[in-house]
């Protein structure tokens, strides 16, 4: 690896080495505040580095890209990590967790996600994916005093391990059929591959799809999602819902923009997956009595909708998908941040009973939560609407009317369950108990997310233009 490569990799290196440094310091110095501040600073520096330091080459060791697209997501995930840490501060201190470990794991995860979003090689993809997945295994179960966290950790771990198996085998088959792991070629050569091997390659892509399906919770690989969301603490859940899914999707978008044709063969499968996922998520959320589980199912629907965008196989669809990912990440993070900011010694408010009438105790955050939920549902004026609009637009352009109609149905159902929560929050008869007032960093994250939801909702042009320039 040359110096140029290292320089190009600088943002990720900052995250990784910063994480390591904080881990080491944390071994001796157990005061959480400075460690967290250091972590946040590291993440921010990483983001700044990704934004400010122009990469000397657009390609790193043939594994990763350092192009605008990759850098954009690097910034996004680094910022997300910073936000995740800000939200986690109180959690770490109240639960007396090892701050060093926590911070370093989040930074590692961010590094992994950044790498994943910039992978141009199946090896890089695999490595990056495993990096942040491993971090999440630990993060989810990090609170050793919590029964649910342990259970969630176990479920995510075992499922993740099986997914890794599928992923590895899938990549192996792709390699076997195409003879390369570099991304455009691995897909492109498949069509040209010797007749006997081509089906293996296709199967390989299918297996990769299953693994990806697990990561981004496509039905029927989504069953772990509600349990893990519920069990994981909200700060981790926020990262899990946004970063880990977003990074995978970002990688998919990158892969697709490089290697279109292979998807052609997978279209019917993806169509089915998208349809089933949208429906399963929406319908599953309908009967939920727990906000975090509801968010889990809602993320399933969203991933189904994303898949519709991916299915379009054109720049329109990819741009829409990218927009969707960014918006979804921000919105979702906002939701988890609100939940985390309300957590107190009773834990996080989760069951609907705990939310009932909370709007009268904490009007601002409840209103923000309603706004975020409406954005998730896709109310015009919020970012969520523009995202859905873009995806449906692209899908209609590509002739997926059926999917759009299913998506519309899912959206209607989504509105039903989001609005039920909104009503719950402002239900007048039963004022809820006072929850935590939240800390400044939490409020800051919530505020930024809210602002982003509105700004990207009313002036989506900013983000669209950026994406248009970045898409490879």
């Amino acid at each position, binding site marked *: 690896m040359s110096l140029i490569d290292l320089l190009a990799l600088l943002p990720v290196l900052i995250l990784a080495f910063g994480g390591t440094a904080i881990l080491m310091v944390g071994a001796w110095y157990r005061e959480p505040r400075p460690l967290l501040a250091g972590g946040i600073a590291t993440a921010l520096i990483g983001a700044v580095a990704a934004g400010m330091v122009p990469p000397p080459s657009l390609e790193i060791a043939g594994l990763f890209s350092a192009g605008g697209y990759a850098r954009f997501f690097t910034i996004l995930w680094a910022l997300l990590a910073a936000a995740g840490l800000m939200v986690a501060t109180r959690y770490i201190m109240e639960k007396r967790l090892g701050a060093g470990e926590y911070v370093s794991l989040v930074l590692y995860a961010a590094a992994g996600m950044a790498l994943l979003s910039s992978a141009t090689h199946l090896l890089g993809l695999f490595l990056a994916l495993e990096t942040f997945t491993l971090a999440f295994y630990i993060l989810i179960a990090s609170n050793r005093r919590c029964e649910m966290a342990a259970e969630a950790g176990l479920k995510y771990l075992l499922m993740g391990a099986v997914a890794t198996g599928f992923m590895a085998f899938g990549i192996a088959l792709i390699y076997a059929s195409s003879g390369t792991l570099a991304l455009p070629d691995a897909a492109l050569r498949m069509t040209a591959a010797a007749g006997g091997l081509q089906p293996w390659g296709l199967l390989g892509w299918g297996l990769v799809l299953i693994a990806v399906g697990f990561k981004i919770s496509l039905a029927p690989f989504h069953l772990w999602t509600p349990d893990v969301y519920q069990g994981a603490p909200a700060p981790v859940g926020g990262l899990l819902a946004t970063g880990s899914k977003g990074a995978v999707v970002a990688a998919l978008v990158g892969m697709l923009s490089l290697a279109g044709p292979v998807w052609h063969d997978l279209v019917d499968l993806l169509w089915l997956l998208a349809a089933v996922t949208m429906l399963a998520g929406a319908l599953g959320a309908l009967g939920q009595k727990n906000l975090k589980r509801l968010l889990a199912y809602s993320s399933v629907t969203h991933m189904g909708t994303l898949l519709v965008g991916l299915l379009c196989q054109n720049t329109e669809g990819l741009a829409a998908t990218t927009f969707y990912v960014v918006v979804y990440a921000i919105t979702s993070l906002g939701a988890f941040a609100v939940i985390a900011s309300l957590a107190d010694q009773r834990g996080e408010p989760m069951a609907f009973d705990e939310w009932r009438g909370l709007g009268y105790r904490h009007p601002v955050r409840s209103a923000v939560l309603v706004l975020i939920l409406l954005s998730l549902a896709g*109310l*015009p004026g919020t970012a969520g*609407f523009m995202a859905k609009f873009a995806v449906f637009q692209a899908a209609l352009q590509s002739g997926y009317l059926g999917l759009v109609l299913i998506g*519309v149905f899912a959206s*209607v159902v989504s509105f039903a369950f989001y609005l039920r929560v909104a*009503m719950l929050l402002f239900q007048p008869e039963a004022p809820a108990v006072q929850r935590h007032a939240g800390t400044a960093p939490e409020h800051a994250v919530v505020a930024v997310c809210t602002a982003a939801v509105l700004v990207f909702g009313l002036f989506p042009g900013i983000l669209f233009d950026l994406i248009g320039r970045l898409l490879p």
Partner: protein
Amino acid sequence: MSTLATLPQFPWLSLLVLLPLAGALLCLLHSGRPAECRALALATSLAVFGVALYLFIYHGQGDGRWLLYEDSAWISRYGIRYVLAMDGIALLMVLLTAFMQLAAILLAWRVERQVAGFFALLLLLEAGLMGIFLAYDLVFFYLFWEVALIPMFFLISVWGGANRRRAALKFFLYTLVGSFCMLVAMIALYQIHGAQTGVYTFVIGELLHTQLTAAQEGWLFAGFLAAFIVKSPLVPFHTWLTDALTEAPAAGSLDLTGLLLKTGIYGLIRLAFPLFPNATAHFLPILGVLALVGLFHAAWSAYHQDDIKRLLAYSSISHLGLVVLGLAAWQLTAWEGSLLLMVTHGITTGALFILVALIRERTATRSMQELGGLWGQVPCLAFFFLFFSLASLGLPGLANFAGEILVLLGTFRAHPVWAVAALLGVVFAAAYMLRLVQGVIWGPARSERTLPDLTLREWLMLLPMALLVVWLGLYPAPFLAPLHGTVAVLLAGGLP
């Protein structure tokens, strides 16, 4: 596009939308101080009314072109523009909205719970309605179309009656299904137009001349129709309205019946008809029959109600059936009648909803079985009740009659049978309205308690409405004047 677009002018239309929005934000900032919120809301809606009145007086004369037009780039990626445009019809609806909103604010004066939220939602609703009436870009229109639902949803679900949550969800989801159908149709139209001309735009005026096959046009029209018919609402898509109106708080019912319902019909006029002229031509007979069915069905159903609010909800549906019938006749006079009737219905039924709220405040009931004899107890209130009931049943000289007779005169020329049937409906209107009056204000007094008659605030709400009802009934010309040109253009299949 109009040449007006190039002229520099004060952005009155944006002001109409932004003023209430700003008022809503200010209200939220003053939460916890009810008196200030009330004053703020009142001041805002007065200002909006002032602007609307100014526009009516100084920009109300037109020969069918846009009276005002604002245009600037917004989301260029999808050719979505920030276009606000006002023609005669929009002007009338804006005026009605501003006027009714004043009444709604006054009516909400006595709300005690979460005052800031209530007024903020009312003002947000006003902003949404203004946007619906003024937006001239499909996506921009859709934005307001949906945004207006949210405040109403919360008004119902938080401040409503016993079954409020169910009603609110039903209201929202029902209309949402329609809206989504419209959204899909909008995007499809956008793409078809873009593919044909290479110009990807959502501006309504530019989409006007898209070449569509019969099947395409039919499906797209159906998509738009789904949204507007549910909102109007035409039977059999009306059950959300009866529930929502019954459960909504007083000011919510007022806005819902007086304004929100009009958006459906307005959408038909502004979007569905001009965009899909051929499909419209095919569909008009069906629309007429649907309208008639609605007129009768609602009138009959109204007769069977005991809850006076529900009765009024049905009466609204019945009246809107007549409005739609006028549109279906596709006749200048009928259209102008329909539009006038939209306004007058808003005022008369709105006033009745106000009165129901006042009665409810005094007697704590809305059941006709428990009411009666109010004339002896609260004569002024009862007088207004009688007055607006008579206006509602179409007594000549009062507002509704002017609209109704124009609808009928116009409709008869095109479809005599429809007009005759609609006239028969008038008997039923009298039947349920008189049953209502009989149940509420005549008969022996139901309680010994002395009830307070109208207060100054209540007079302030009702008296202007009553005067307006008389004015519109006897001399609607100023309100018809802005319509002549616009309607003629619309009937010819164009837009200003």
